[in-house]
């Protein structure tokens, strides 16, 4: 089953390529601004958040910017991929209603093009790293691993959302509302040590907590993340991917009935 699905995806790799290109052209080609926007937007956000939070939390401004950006950009990748995925099947319904296409390809292409956006969005962070005195550490070489966890987790949630949205359109809105508190339950704008001990467990129930920590640690601390954090990140990523994949493939053949 899995093998069949993968061979099918390979067979449709040109389509995957074209869908990613289409996403990116719609985003960047029509305006050069789109290209800069993807870097500018987080920078503007950073300035706002820095002004607000670095004073509240008595964070050094320099540290705060790195701390914030390394978590926020990864969160943005997750949030934007999943939101876009939640309507990708509905948007492409007119297409796969007429021609056979493996549906997973729409979700995967959405995540890939957002991965491209993430790599652009990380450029300012890496430029700021030496400027703000953090410097480059060997630990940065570890980043592909937490990135892989983030992709797995994101693909899983995207599978789940896109399939559910076919049957219940309002899931899309509900999810977007839900994302806001979710972001604040992930230590992105505040440091972990301001969280009172007795509330810490709430954060630890949040799967994104481990993935963000895993990604930020090598950048912010300049060393490898704790083994325990890594294992838990791998665990939540795998569980998400597995559940998402199983649900998606179970219902994939029926999507066209509801479009």
């Amino acid at each position, binding site marked *: 089953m899995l093998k069949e699905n993968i061979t099918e995806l390979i*067979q*449709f790799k*040109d*389509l995957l*390529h*074209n869908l990613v290109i*289409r996403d990116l*052209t*719609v985003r960047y080609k029509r305006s050069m601004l789109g290209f800069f926007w993807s870097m500018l937007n987080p920078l503007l956000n950073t300035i706002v958040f820095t002004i607000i939070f670095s004073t509240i939390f008595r964070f050094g401004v320099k540290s705060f910017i790195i701390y914030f950006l390394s978590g926020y950009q990864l969160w943005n990748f997750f949030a934007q991929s999943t939101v876009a995925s939640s309507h990708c099947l509905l948007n492409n319904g*007119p*297409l*796969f*209603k*007429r*021609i*056979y*296409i493996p549906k997973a390809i729409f979700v995967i292409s959405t995540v890939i093009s957002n991965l491209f956006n993430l790599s652009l969005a990380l450029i300012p962070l890496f430029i700021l790293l030496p400027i703000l005195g953090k410097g480059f550490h060997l630990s940065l070489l570890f980043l592909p691993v937490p990135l892989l966890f983030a992709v797995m987790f994101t693909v899983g949630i995207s599978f789940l959302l896109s399939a*559910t949205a076919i*049957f*219940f*359109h*309002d*899931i899309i809105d*509900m999810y977007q509302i839900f994302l806001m508190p979710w972001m604040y339950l992930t230590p992105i704008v505040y440091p972990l040590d301001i969280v009172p001990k007795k509330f810490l467990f709430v954060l630890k129930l949040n799967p994104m907590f481990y993935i963000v920590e895993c990604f930020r640690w090598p950048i912010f601390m300049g060393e490898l993340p704790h083994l325990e954090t890594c294992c838990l990140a791998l665990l939540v990523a795998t569980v998400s991917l597995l559940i998402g994949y199983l649900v998606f493939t179970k219902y994939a*053949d029926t999507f*066209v*009935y509801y479009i």
Partner: protein
Amino acid sequence: MNLPIVLQDVSVRYRLPKERVHSFKEFIIKSFKGHMEYEEFWALKNITFQVPPGEMLGIVGRNGAGKSTLLKLIARVMKPTRGTVRVPGKVAPMIELGGGFDHELSGRENVYLLGSILGISRREMDKKFDAISEFTELEDFMETPLRAYSSGMITRLGFAVVIAVDPEIMILDEVLAVGDTAFQEKCHAHIAKFRQAGGTILFVSHSLDQILKFCDRALWLERGEIRSWGDTPGVVRQYENFLGSVAD
């Protein structure tokens, strides 16, 4: 490829929540109350027929009879609720054409996009592109975004890409009606060539003249059931009589 297309006892059921709620909130509320009402609609009922290789089958029937649904089964777009569908060979579907296109992209980009949807790789498409653009006679519009095309032009583009796939089975759902006469002639010529090479065609049209002119056999669908299947003139005559009786 010399196996027939076989549909065995095929049924398709669309299942809609009453008044098409599509809402998770409603779903939860209704599930708690314990009555989720579905409207069941059988778009096809116990359909059995075969199409031998090299044959052209015409499908007629009134709006909503289930013709497009039937073609979707053969194009692998849908799996039937019951029964089996066997389609040996590469299928090129043209079901309500134009759906495979993105209106923001140029003609050229759309040719590559639709090509990849139909399984033509970029490299293959590089080779085929000139022939496609020549067939459409839209060479001057290839860099224009599709939103600036007329609907006839879009149909041309779609037809040209689909025939470039080199299919063994072609599915034509009301596509020949849109182009102008000159383009229609061109399509007819291509269809004749395709059939000489042994290709199979399923053809849906509301133009009974076209059905009579091209098809070896015809199938009449009415409310999801086969009313008649056999030699074209006979089926078309029955269907015409029926249309006459409905109109009265």
